[in-house]
Structures are given as structure tokens and as C-alpha cells.
């Protein structure tokens, strides 16, 4: 009785080494970046602080349900915020679950959407230096994303080219709530630079462009809003496809992180249906939209969809394509998915290998 759900869970995946496609490290405080910022920008940070394109500086437009958005048991015993202590992350996540590679996504202060563009570029460089020196070089299982200022394409490209070829960095990240829809041409040079260097674009929901997370307006409740992350990512995917980003840059790979995935097949069906009827409006799409999605996009599992009948999820995963799916925990956040118990759908051994390991190794080039 007490084990109702756990007994239905798939066999623990612990025997298989995993790739976790969404791990959050954190700064203990912005002062951690001081060694990586010039005096000019240290003083700027101290005097003017971080300013993003959102009202209520110091507050977040995103809801939370737990301090630091985190599992209560992830506060490091030695002090600091969840995700800020490598040794505790190793114990609680990497070693415990047999994670051979963890893809880092930084959500605290970043330079990705600073209003002062020069400060944003300096902050991105400092964060990337910090990630390299204090995370990926300290534990080779951890792989960083090159964070770039997405609204400043020349600076973003300079940042990509600075790190390209360094295998500690496996993708390029910019915020998902961009000033214009992400498929617009002002962002293309960034996508081209990433593709030219063999780096996927990893899009973890983040940032603010002043709009509500939900297209219905500002939500009253977290319960109401949490899935709106998926809706905002649907808009992003539609923009990338319809603007022709994928047809223009066939080598581009895009990974959608922390938006779940049950919505993706439905979006594919609808886009294909409308493309068949209005193809002449988007003649630059020479193939059905779903083909671009299924060839150039990947989706992480967390937050896992939990249908009443767990095996119903298998149809959805099949419609999407087993090669598109990347397992992610979202450690240390409160909506963490446990590798052993989160995926309640029964999988074949091959499907399990693809979802928990092989797809990620392929898209992030971990075998190179």
C-alpha cells in the first residue's frame, strides 16, 4: 500500500551509467565572480548591480515553491546555497546515481540578459571562466554551457569562438525569453557560430523580456504557471521552425531543457497540418515542420509527464522519436526527477540506453 507508486516504477537505472542533461550549479554569491572580473566590472557590479529587462529588480518574475527553488535536502552541510558545493553535488547526485556526464545550466546571476551590454559580455566571460576553473576542471564529469549575451550577437559570437574546441564546453546557452521571438534574424549569427563550431544550442527556460511567462497573462498561482514554461517553449520552437532557422542552418542542433515533452508531438501535428494548407506563406520551409524538429531538436524529460496509466507515455515518446529524448534530473531544484523512479513507463533495454545515455552522448559529442 505504502509502495503503490514505487512498485510500479521501472527497474532502477543505476546499473546503467547516465548522462544528466540538466544540472544546476550555483554561485555562493556574486562575489565568487570577482577573480574573473576586471576591476572596472567588479566596481560596476558593486555600484550598479545586475539589471535585467524586467521590473522589480531583485525579485523574480518566476514563482517558487521552496527556498532557492530547491529540494530541502540539497542545502550543503558546509553552508552555501543548493548547487554551490561541488563535493555535496558529487555525493548527492553524481556518485549516487552513477552519472558519467552532467550538463550544467547556470540560473543565478548571468550575463545572458543584462541591460548594460558591455557588462553582460564581461559577466558571460567571467561566468565561463568560473565554470571552467571551479567546476568542469574540478570534476571531469561536469560539462558546461558557454553562456552568451543573446541580444548582442557580435559579443555572443566572440564568446563562442573564445571557448570553441574546449571540450569542457558542450553547448551554447542564451535565455529563452528573448526580446524578439528566437527565430528572428537578429539571432541567426549566434546560431551559425554555434553550428560552425559543432556546438548545440541548449535552451533552458530562463530570462525575462517583460512579458508574462504564460501568454494568458500574469498567473496567480505557481500551479497555474509551472506548465507555462512548456507553452513558452512551444512558442520558441514554432518561431525557430517557421522563421526557417533549421532550413537555413542544417547543422544547427537545438536542445530544449526543462519544458517536458508530451506537448511536442501535438505541436508537430499542428504545424504539419497548417504547413500543408499555407505552405506558400512559408516557402522557405521545403519540408513539413516536424521533419526539422525531428532532425535538429532534442528534448529533456524533466519535469516528467505522469499520466494516470504510466505506459500511456510510451505512445507519446514513440510519436516524438526515441532518439530525441534526453533524461534530466534538474538537480537540485524542487521539481527534481529521480533517475531510479521518475520514469514509470516500462522501456526496452535499447530505449533505456538511448534516453538515459546514448542520445546525450551523441548530441553533445561526448564520444569525440
Amino acid at each position: 500500500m505504502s509502495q503503490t507508486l514505487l512498485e510500479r516504477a521501472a527497474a532502477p537505472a543505476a546499473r546503467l551509467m547516465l548522462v544528466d542533461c540538466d544540472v544546476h550549479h550555483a554561485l555562493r554569491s556574486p562575489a565568487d565572480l570577482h577573480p574573473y572580473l576586471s576591476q572596472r566590472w567588479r566596481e560596476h557590479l558593486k555600484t550598479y548591480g545586475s539589471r535585467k529587462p524586467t521590473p522589480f529588480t531583485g525579485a523574480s518574475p518566476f514563482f517558487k515553491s521552496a527556498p532557492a527553488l530547491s529540494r530541502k535536502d540539497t542545502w550543503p552541510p558546509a553552508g552555501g546555497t543548493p548547487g554551490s558545493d561541488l563535493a555535496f553535488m558529487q555525493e548527492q547526485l553524481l556518485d549516487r546515481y552513477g552519472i558519467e556526464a552532467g550538463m550544467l545550466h547556470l540560473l543565478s546571476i548571468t550575463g545572458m540578459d543584462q541591460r548594460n551590454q558591455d557588462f553582460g559580455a564581461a559577466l558571460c566571460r567571467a561566468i565561463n571562466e568560473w565554470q571552467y576553473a571551479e567546476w568542469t576542471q574540478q570534476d571531469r564529469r561536469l560539462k558546461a554551457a558557454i553562456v552568451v549575451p543573446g541580444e548582442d550577437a557580435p559579443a555572443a559570437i566572440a564568446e563562442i569562438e573564445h571557448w570553441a574546441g574546449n571540450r569542457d564546453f558542450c553547448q551554447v546557452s542564451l535565455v529563452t525569453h528573448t526580446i524578439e521571438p528566437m527565430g528572428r534574424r537578429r539571432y541567426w549569427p549566434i546560431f551559425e557560430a554555434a553550428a560552425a563550431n559543432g556546438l548545440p544550442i541548449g535552451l533552458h527556460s530562463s530570462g525575462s523580456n517583460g512579458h508574462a511567462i504564460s501568454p494568458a497573462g500574469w498567473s496567480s498561482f505557481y500551479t497555474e504557471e509551472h506548465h507555462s514554461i512548456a507553452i513558452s517553449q512551444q512558442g520558441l520552437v514554432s518561431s525557430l521552425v517557421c522563421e526557417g532557422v533549421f532550413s537555413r542552418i542544417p547543422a544547427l542542433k537545438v536542445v530544449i531543457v526543462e519544458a517536458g515533452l508530451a506537448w511536442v508531438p501535438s505541436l508537430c501535428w499542428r504545424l504539419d497540418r497548417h504547413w500543408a494548407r499555407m505552405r506558400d506563406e512559408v516557402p522557405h520551409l521545403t519540408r513539413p515542420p516536424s521533419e526539422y524538429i525531428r532532425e535538429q531538436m532534442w528534448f529533456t524529460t524533466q519535469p516528467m509527464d505522469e499520466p494516470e496509466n504510466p505506459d500511456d507515455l510510451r505512445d507519446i515518446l514513440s510519436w516524438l522519436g526515441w532518439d530525441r529524448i534526453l533524461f534530466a534530473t534538474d538537480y537540485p531544484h524542487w521539481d527534481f526527477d529521480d533517475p531510479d523512479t521518475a520514469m514509470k513507463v516500462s522501456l526496452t533495454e535499447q530505449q533505456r540506453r538511448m534516453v538515459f545515455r546514448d542520445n546525450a552522448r551523441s548530441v553533445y559529442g561526448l564520444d569525440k
Partner: protein
Amino acid sequence: MSKHVVATVAEIPPGKRKLVTVRGRSIAVFNLDGEFYGLFNRCPHQGGPMCEGILTGLIQSNEPGHYEYSRAGEILRCPWHGWEFDVRTGQSFCDPSKISVRSYPMEVAPGQTVVQGPYVAETIPVTVEEQYVVVEM
């Protein structure tokens, strides 16, 4: 079945908890106003460590805009995803008829009785002066 001594009463004051292991099983022991309750330390959802959850109250509502807050300190929220459980019974609030965390009946026994046995007290030294929290399993 045997009776296991898991703590002294003094070491778990009201509102506090202790994680114990009995026959290889992790059990979170809670003191609610002098009554002791034990819950399996693994959430039935994804396995979160129940002993690290916060104790809170029960919020209920008959219609939007109205609510009642009751049972302060008697509702345990899983530290991972926040599922709520009744500390006294282990019953969940998201799906009470199907989902619960296993509950272990706890009792208080005086040291005089515990010393006489038969009790299993592998890790707790027992003396006649103390009161003990005991689980039978």
C-alpha cells in the same frame, strides 16, 4: 515481530523528529505534542527522504476566496516535490484512497519495562530512569 527501542523520549521533543533504522528500514519518528508517530523514510512518489520534510498545517477550502487552516504541525510535506501526508496515519492528501506512506505504530515504554525485556535495544543504552520510544515490527 519484536519490540525495538529507537530513542529516548527526551531526545525527540514535541515538534522534532529523528531518523532511525530498524531491521534495515529507515523510519522517521515524529513527536506531535507528546505522541510519537513513525513513517517509512521514503516518499511513495519518487523516493524523497520524508524525515527531511517540513511539518505544516492543512489548508482546506470550500470555494475560491475562503480557506481554513487547521492541524498545524501535523502535515508532513516531502522535501522533494511537496506531496502532503498525515503524520498520524501516513495517508496522502493528493490521492488519499490509493497513496500513503507506511506508518509504524510507536509507543512509549518506561525504562523499568524496557530493561526487563524482551526489547531489542542495539544502539540505545537503556536505564530504568528514562522513558523510551519503541516500535514493534
